């Protein structure tokens, strides 16, 4: 999952120091994962700065933590594009999807759109596998079924999440 997009998304709610961003990221998306290293936070921010996706509002004093980062218009466009783009179905996809859903809710975007786009991407692949299965032999059917059951599990999680969006939105403080 791209840390860069997640940091950008967090910045949509207002400028922040690297330290606050790291803490915010770990709180929201860090469950079950190692905390983000400061080094990764600052190298990611430097990359975003270089590409014009964030800008720096300097404060008096020294050190990286004196810099406040703010998202630019180009950065907002990048976040929007990322959220609207479906993820390639793969194992453990839920962590990326979870991040996208939380960011969509936090930034006032329609999380249902995101889920619909992802459902469509999953169904596209499921149709392909179903065709392969229908035209193939028993071995094809068994191989395709394994993938189909996993994709179905993703989709069931997606539907459950869609049903809980209102509840989730309430719990997110902007």
């Amino acid at each position, binding site marked *: 999952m791209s840390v860069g997009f997640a940091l950008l998304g967090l910045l949509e709610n207002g400028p922040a120091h690297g330290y606050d961003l790291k803490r915010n990221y770990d709180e929201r998306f860090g469950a079950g994962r190692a905390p983000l290293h400061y080094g990764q936070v600052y190298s990611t921010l430097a990359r975003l700065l270089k590409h014009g996706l964030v800008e720096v509002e300097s404060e008096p004093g020294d050190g990286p933590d004196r810099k406040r980062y703010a998202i630019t218009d180009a950065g907002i466009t990048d976040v929007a594009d990322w959220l609207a783009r479906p993820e390639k179905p793969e194992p453990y996809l839920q962590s990326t999807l979870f991040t996208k859903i939380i960011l969509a809710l936090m930034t006032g975007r329609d999380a249902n759109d995101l889920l619909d786009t992802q459902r469509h991407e999953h169904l596209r692949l*499921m149709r392909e596998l179903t065709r392969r299965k229908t035209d193939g032999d028993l071995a094809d059917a068994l191989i395709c079924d394994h993938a189909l059951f996993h994709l179905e599990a993703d989709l069931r999680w997606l539907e459950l999440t869609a049903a809980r969006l209102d509840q989730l939105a309430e719990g997110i403080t902007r």
Partner: protein
Amino acid sequence: MTDALLTAHDLRLRFGETTALDGASLRVRAGEVLALMGPSGSGKSTLLHCLAGILTPESGQVTFDGDDLAALTDAARSALRRTKFGFVFQFGQLVPELTCLENVALPLRLCGVSRREARVAAAGWLERLEVDDVAGKRPGQVSGGQGQRVAVARALVTRPTVIFADEPTGALDSLNGERVMKLFTAAARQTGAAVVLVTHEARVAAYSDREAVVRDGRVREQEFAA
């Protein structure tokens, strides 16, 4: 989307205090298999019943082949349902006193087809759905999967233009459900019938050409192309 065969425009319908449809619009193309998905209570079955002319919306319009269903007489609407539309439900659609063959022949008999001709056509459909071996049995004597394939044969026997299927595999295990869907969609595609399929199961929806998602009585704006 062009060449829509069946359309719903801004349908609204309430059951008491409950809003079932809240401005639902949809277009179904000739020959396509469309999956209507969405959570329980989202309005997908109500939308299907409105499209099929079983329920009449309080406002909005359903058209089939350019005709407004509400403008048709009751007799014309019944005739449409008998000849142009086919139905497959989750269960309980076969007449228990008739054999499976007689059940499949029944829609043709109601259209005035001779007994002999209807039985020959019914036998052909039972064979295509791989249930010719239960032709002489009553619905209570066959398995759930066989019963659903008989129901599909009955829906297809009049060669309808649209088949409405509401959770057709809802009461079956995955293996039987898959078999029903495989034979059902293959047969529908061969005859050129469009299928409007209500399902909450992704593996069933994977037999469709595209999906439309119903939520809170509306069809989500993204009606994804195949």
